[in-house]
């Protein structure tokens, strides 16, 4: 059940990434919704789920892109595992730790992803720092919002139930 939910979440993130995200910031990929989904899964379920989620999501993302299949999967696998492990060791339920986690996850992902591409001589990333910083902030923002929305859903549903019962 949980695995299915994770897969659905990843698929949704991919769908949003490929359709909606590019409209948010003028065509530049300032946010990685798939990475946000992986970090979310890792923070909420642990390192193994984060690892598997990152691996699957990254491979799908790689497969859909024109890049080398595996680099994105490797980067997201590492991020998912590390975030899940840290999330198990520390309390990251407060907004600030989560923000830090998103920023750090984005940085690690960029480091692995760009580093591998550059190391293999397959692609160069001019002005990488700016792109990484912008993406980190964007991911953090989206992630915080996502957390807030998702965590508010149960209460929202409960309030609606209570309202319906009161009307009846």
């Amino acid at each position: 059940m949980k695995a299915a939910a994770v897969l659905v979440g990843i698929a949704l993130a991919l769908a949003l990434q490929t359709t909606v995200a590019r409209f948010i910031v003028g065509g530049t990929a300032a946010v990685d919704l798939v990475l946000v989904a992986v970090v979310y899964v890792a923070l909420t379920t642990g390192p193994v789920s984060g690892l598997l989620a990152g691996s699957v999501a990254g491979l799908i993302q790689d497969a859909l892109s024109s890049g080398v299949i595996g680099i994105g999967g490797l980067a997201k696998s590492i991020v998912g595992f590390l975030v899940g492990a840290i999330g198990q060791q520390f309390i990251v339920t407060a907004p600030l730790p989560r923000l830090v986690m998103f920023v750090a996850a984005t940085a690690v992902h960029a480091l692995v992803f760009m580093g591998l591409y550059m190391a293999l001589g397959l692609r160069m990333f001019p002005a990488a720092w700016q792109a990484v910083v912008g993406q980190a902030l964007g991911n953090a923002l989206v992630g915080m919002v996502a957390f807030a929305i998702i965590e508010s859903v149960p209460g929202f549903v409960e309030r609606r139930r209570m309202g319906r019962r009161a009307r009846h």
Partner: protein
Amino acid sequence: MAVLDIRQRAGWLFLAVIVAHIVLISAQVNTRRGVPMLEAFTFGIFAEVQRGATSAVNQVQDGWQNYFALQQIRHENESLKQEVAQLQVRLQQERALAEQSRALQGLLALHDESKLETTGANVIGGAPSPEFRTMTIDKGSREGLRPDMAVISPAGVVGRVIMPSGRAAKVQLLIDRNAAAGAIVERTRAQGVVVGLGTDRLRMDYVAGSAELKPGDRVVTSGIDGIYPKGFVIGQIESVQRGGGDFSGIVIKPAVDFSSLEAVLVVTTPQSEFPADTETDAAGVKTNATSAAGTPATPAVTTPAKPVAAPAAHATAPAKPAPATPAASAESAPESTEAGEER
């Protein structure tokens, strides 16, 4: 449960996923040489495996070959050892033959130089008791050996025949305590009697106190005893002691190593036919026969225990050998039981 196991092995799972991704990436990325990285990596790894396997196989092969080679070498070693042993035996035989030949040559030379009729004999036995310095030779009365015949060797005087049997003879060595021989110091012509001590040394007695002797002087037979031909080496003076103007002890080291005698010559020439002078002694040293013959006084030849005559009494002994030989003197002495036993 499986999920639980996976969760408990998160590290291994992480490693597996990472490796899988690396493999996946490597399969798509080419190296600078245009070869897929996975292929190059796999080839590199497999090449090392091949290297290790080849090395192991080579080592086993070498070990196997060395084992067989070692076995072959072992057989060769064994045969070589046998050959060496056989060669050592042959070498010893050759050495023995050479030694025997050398000894025979020495005897032959001695035979030629002594101008005496001699017969060669091999030593076949030693003394039955340490108190007696005798030996047994393989020639006896059948070969013409008689008592009191001198026995010599290339090194010098050995002794005399004291008891010949048909095919063997007992020889009294000069170092026997009952043996004696007329002697003369080669350098100073001082005369005396050399007697055995029963040890490996001799003593020279009856030397005039005015004689000049020193260690290292060679002592040869004087010939006056009628047993030993003149001029044969007895030994060298080892030490000289004086007491009250006379010599109290003249120790002589024998020229013959009695412990290593293997072959000897028995002088079969009758005593009356001994040459008047011997030009060459046993060691090939020229002796002054005229001077020796002109020695005014010769000592008596007798046993050391019981000298029966004064030296002057036997001054004419060289021309006519005195019947009282050392052994005969010993025989006449009732106290000398050893000589009596030998007889």
